[in-house]
């Protein structure tokens, strides 16, 4: 079948969402994945954006931002950031969220703030300037602390999958184990990391992410080679099912402009 890694990543992410859930998507890939799920198998998924755009579906292709006209054309309610991010998400009320990551570590902590050349703040004991400044957490921090579970999407490259991220923008399981409880987060933490190569899930006790499944075109070895820590592999490791024709059709109807088809 003809599909891209990005398309399978979006479909695999969409498969994590269930009908009737209250869900928040970030911009870009995660939004496509979410609306794909709504179109494909979860028609009663209640989706909203961090701007408080409720009840809408994208019109004319991938929205440039989570409040632009492509997502605002058929909304049933417009509220605001506090309503969406704090009242519905950080409060612990939202079932599921999807976020992206520039850098991610074995406990699912996400860095979207900066890449340091030499010493990171936690190594240097001071907040030195990053070599590459990224975007900051946006609303991903609220999703990470508050959603009952959330899914992280990331391109599977060694430089992105670090033993320890340079900077925690949005918390996964911090240092693993019961760390989230220590900080009092209402949400349950990341339930999966879905990459361009496969699916990682957290160990129920240690919360270290292990390889749960790989894509048909990938392999355990390729994934281990592209992971910056010694990735454990599930004894029941699976191959992610290929997209069905129906799934691909539905995804491409959401991704009108074909942004995921660029390999």
């Amino acid at each position, binding site marked *: 079948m003809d599909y891209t890694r990005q398309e399978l990543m979006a479909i695999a992410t969409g498969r994590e969402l269930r009908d009737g859930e209250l869900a928040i998507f970030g*911009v*870009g890939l995660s939004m496509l994945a979410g609306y794909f799920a709504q179109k494909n198998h979860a028609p009663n998924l209640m989706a909203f954006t*961090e*701007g408080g755009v409720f009840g809408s579906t994208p019109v004319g292709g991938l929205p440039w931002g989570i409040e632009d006209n492509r997502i*605002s054309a058929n909304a049933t309610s417009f509220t*605001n950031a506090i309503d969406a*991010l704090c009242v519905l998400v950080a409060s612990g009320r939202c079932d599921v969220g999807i976020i992206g990551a520039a850098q991610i570590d074995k406990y699912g902590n996400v860095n979207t703030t900066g890449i340091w050349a030499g010493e990171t703040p936690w190594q240097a004991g001071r907040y030195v300037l990053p070599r590459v400044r990224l975007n900051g957490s946006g609303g991903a921090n609220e999703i990470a602390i508050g959603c009952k579970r959330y899914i992280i999407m990331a391109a599977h490259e060694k430089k992105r999958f670090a033993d320890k991220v340079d900077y925690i923008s949005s918390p996964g399981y911090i240092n693993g184990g019961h760390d989230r409880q220590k*900080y009092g987060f209402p949400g349950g933490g990341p339930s999966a990391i879905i990459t361009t190569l496969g699916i990682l899930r957290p160990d129920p006790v240690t919360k270290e992410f292990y390889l749960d499944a790989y894509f048909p075109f990938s392999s355990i070895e390729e994934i281990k080679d592209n992971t910056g820590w010694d990735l454990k592999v599930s004894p029941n490791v699976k191959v992610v099912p290929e997209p069905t024709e129906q799934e691909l059709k539905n995804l491409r109807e959401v991704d009108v402009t074909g942004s995921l088809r660029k390999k």
Partner: protein
Amino acid sequence: MRNKLITMQEAVAKYTWDGMTYAHGGALPVGSDSIAFGREMVRQGRKNLNLISNCNTQQSNLLAAVGAIKRIEVGFAGLEVYGFANGLKRAIETGQTIAEDYSNGAIPLRFLGGALNWPFVPAGGIMVGCDQQWCSGDNPDEYPATNKMPEITDPFTGRKVAVFSVAKPDVAAIHVTMADIYGNAIMLGTEWSRYELSRCAKKVVLQADFIVDTDCMRQYPNLVRIPGEVVDAVVYWPLGVWPQCSVGVYDSDEEHMFAMNAAFKTPEGTEEYVQKYVLSYNTREEYLAMIGKEKIEKITNNPTTFLMDPYRKWIKSDDEIKELEGRAE
């Protein structure tokens, strides 16, 4: 209530100054923001700004690119699908702009706390346990930082909880879809944090796509989330969010979004952009001519325009507006 309609030049001259704490609003990176107001700040040479951006937009990107931002408190510093905001990215990486990072929920909570005149605002877990709590741009030598999000004890449970400082900018320039001359305003699309911003800022200037008659407000009072009671000045500037979008009115100008951001990669590109798109006009008519008729036709024909339909009959003409601008009290 008094007529508060003044020109953009007057508004920026009167309500902005070097070194001020300025906040812009602001529906996320690529939506409604008072970008024309920011262009006029560049035209009038404002510098040393302490900026509060719930999200970066092309306004903060421009102000950072020209070196006008000394410090920024920001929840998201990019341009969403358009990529990194090159002007702001460059300013932070070179150390010209000090970044104090917050999340997108934290900034509006800090506005809300300012609006309520609270001493602090509970974080509710936001940013807790993250480098956003521990790294302070204002206090880089202290890691983990203790004063950006200090901890207090919840008197009901005895548990430690973190709090934020509140935000009270000197001035907020807020984009709205419609305003009357008294400052009663209607926003279409997400408010993002514009409601909170209109209540926490010491002075509020509105930048409106349309000036409407007050009868519009009396028909739709529940839509008037910013009443004139909290507004100091109103500025009429059509397509003032360009190249970003204003829900119900115009779409993003995708081509210009990329070109503008590409220009900000270098000081030279920025200088060229400013010459061509910031200093090149003086009037609203010249501004619209700069965008171009064809482009305007393209972006005003979009799937959200039906949202404006109920209000069109109250829109004031450019001639009426010019006369009203001359009679501000």
